[in-house]
């Protein structure tokens, strides 16, 4: 019987997670004038007008493309530099390895607000302001340490014997790494990519500071809904709903690996 009760509690909690999102969905299906004039639990006359506005206007939907571009670049970049390093941390002993690992972690924890101004000037110096690369690089600040950390966990759970066997069989290191080792830790790479995507997608402070027009993230474009006549609630809600979609899709695709990955990895 306790089993039943537990499930009721869980269902209540999942409801608590979904209701605010559902409410925003409700708002997004109604024109702002209607939202402000009457309070309704369900839209009387659901319309996709708000979504049509967003998807029909390049200044809106380019925000999505920008966000997806730098998030993709950041995920690829983070994995690319983190994979070899994680291997080194999990397999080799070298001067200062633990301290290096610690230093990396401190960057994961550093408040982005601290780095705002120097970042802006650093990227100005290299002419990177308002490019996708600038945001992708800036997000490496917290994603690379995270990626190294998660991957190291996965790699350490792979027996060393594989490395030694490959060496005896005459595999060169790059060939061993790419054809034998990487497939073995496949789920780990997936989980790492998931977390890199997630943290880059949800971050706004740095993304907004380093971009002005060309690479402006969708989350920053949303401030456009504030106008002289007040907030355009319907439009704001629709834009918000659309930012949830990519994340939801990603979760759906990795759902099987997620539980396994979480159990093996560290985050």
């Amino acid at each position, binding site marked *: 019987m306790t089993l039943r009760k537990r499930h009721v509690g869980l269902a209540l909690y999942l409801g608590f997670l979904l209701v605010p999102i559902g409410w925003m969905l409700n708002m997004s299906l109604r024109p702002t004038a209607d939202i402000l004039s009457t309070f309704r639990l369900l839209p009387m006359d659901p319309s996709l007008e708000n979504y049509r506005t967003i998807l029909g206007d390049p200044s809106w939907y380019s925000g999505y493309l920008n966000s997806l571009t730098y998030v993709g670049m950041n995920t690829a970049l983070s994995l690319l530099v983190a994979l070899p390093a994680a291997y080194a941390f999990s397999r080799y002993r070298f*001067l*200062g390895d*633990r*301290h290096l690992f610690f230093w990396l972690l401190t960057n994961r924890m550093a408040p982005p607000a601290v780095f705002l101004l*120097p970042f802006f*000037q650093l990227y*100005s*110096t*290299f002419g990177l302001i308002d490019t996708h690369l600038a945001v992708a690089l800036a997000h490496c600040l917290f994603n690379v340490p995270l990626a190294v950390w998660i991957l190291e966990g996965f790699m350490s759970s792979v027996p060393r014997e594989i490395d030694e066997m490959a060496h005896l069989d005459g595999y060169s290191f790059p060939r061993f790494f790419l054809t034998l080792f990487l497939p073995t830790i496949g789920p780990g790479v997936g989980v790492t990519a998931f977390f890199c995507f997630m943290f880059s997608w949800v971050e706004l402070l740095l993304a907004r500071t380093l971009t002005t027009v060309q690479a402006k993230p969708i989350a920053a474009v949303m401030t456009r809904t504030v106008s002289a006549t007040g907030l355009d609630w319907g439009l704001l809600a629709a834009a918000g709903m659309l930012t949830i979609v990519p994340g939801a899709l990603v979760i759906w695709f990795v759902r099987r690996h997620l539980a396994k990955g979480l159990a093996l990895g560290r985050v």
Partner: protein
Amino acid sequence: MIDLEWMAWTLPTAVFFAGIAALLVGMSVWQHVSPTRRRRGALGLSTTRGDRVFLGLLASAFLQLAWLGLTPFSPWIAAGLGGVLLVWILRFG
């Protein structure tokens, strides 16, 4: 040459970072000459020499902050005390 004026270097901060860099190099050489042993000291933590240097620097930084925040005296006194603290942690921590 890229313009680095925005980094606003000053002599004291340059000396500070050069000092940190020299410390890192020195520690590496020291490690090479005589490798550290992990041990448990007065702080009750299992530390290597590098850990103790880090802890010492962190502790003296907090000491410096406490000094600046709570007393009106010259920060140089705190710097001196911080140095003593660093050496103590390195030796006995």
